[in-house]
């Protein structure tokens, strides 16, 4: 019995020979870096189509959709890191191809904030859309709107012209004016 105990005791001492696996300073680097680590989100506002499906599937309601003044694809997800449980369902469900618009994989793991409830309240992955992008989107939209307007007007005019022509009246030129670009759009 006593010999057995001594034997066990000495065998434990074998651990002294094995080097410890704690060989990195984990304050600065991770011990294991998987490619699919579900960490901090990255949202690509340019490819996002604003389908709202990430918001719908989120089991913890961590995602809110930020609204933009332009009309189409005008919502982009923002994630509250203090609510998110990093399950990655939003990434799974995102329909954009080939790159998903919301990505957790390979994200950062060290997400720290102040401990006050207020600090955690505004602990978000904000989708910072630059003003220039908003402006360009607005301009694009305006341009397409105008184009469409023009096209419809033209169509209407043509149709009318056709009618008139059929009726044997004189063809009048349709005057079109371009609307003021920057007015009344940003409201």
């Amino acid at each position, binding site marked *: 019995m006593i010999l057995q105990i001594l034997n066990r005791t000495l065998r434990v001492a074998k651990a002294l020979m094995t080097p410890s*696996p704690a060989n990195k300073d984990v304050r600065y680097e991770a*011990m294991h870096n998987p490619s699919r680590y579900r960490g901090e989100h990255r949202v690509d506002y340019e490819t996002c189509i604003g389908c709202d499906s990430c918001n719908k599937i989120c089991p913890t309601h961590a995602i809110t959709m930020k609204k933009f003044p332009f009309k189409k694809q005008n919502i982009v997800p923002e994630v509250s890191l*203090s*609510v998110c449980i*990093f399950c990655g369902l939003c990434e799974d469900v995102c329909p954009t191809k080939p790159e998903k618009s919301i990505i957790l994989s390979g994200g950062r*793991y060290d997400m*720290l904030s102040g*401990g*006050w409830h207020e600090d955690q309240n505004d602990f978000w992955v904000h989708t910072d859309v630059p003003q220039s992008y908003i402006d360009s989107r607005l301009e694009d939209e305006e341009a397409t709107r105008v184009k469409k307007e023009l096209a419809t007007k033209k169509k209407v005019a043509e149709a009318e012209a056709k009618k008139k022509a059929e009726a044997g009246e004189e063809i009048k030129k349709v005057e079109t004016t371009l609307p003021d670009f920057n007015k009344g759009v940003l409201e």
Partner: protein
Amino acid sequence: MLKILDFFDYAKSESLWMAHFCTGCCSLEMAAAMGPRYDWERYGYLPTPTPRQADVLMITGLVSKKILPALLRTYAQMPEPKYVVAMGACSFDGGPYNDSLSVIKNPTEILPADVFIAGCPPKPEAIIEGLEQVKQKIKNGEPSAASQGGLWKEMEF
């Protein structure tokens, strides 16, 4: 004289002992952080069996209604100066259990923490980094958050 006091302040910051108290699942990752691979003892952290000798209280995730009095009492039993670390989504608003009524939705409003570590559960690396931030806070001489406010002061427990 000033130097000696500085030394004690530094010592305080470099030696964080935590109360052995787990309220939820994040304590599993805390155990991993104690384990051989992450080994937080390298940085001077040490678990203590009783709150009387602890400096840091870890809110390890979920705080259910039933355990709240025990949590606050554990906090009260710790000697000054004491700090609180909150980890996991649960300690902000119940996290995945937000829809459930048996958990406290605002643990950090009741007991403000000094640092919040996001994740469900956070990686051990993140836990250690969060504790490093507490160290930094002590080095800067900042008072702990819970001593400055929080609903716990108005509550009985």
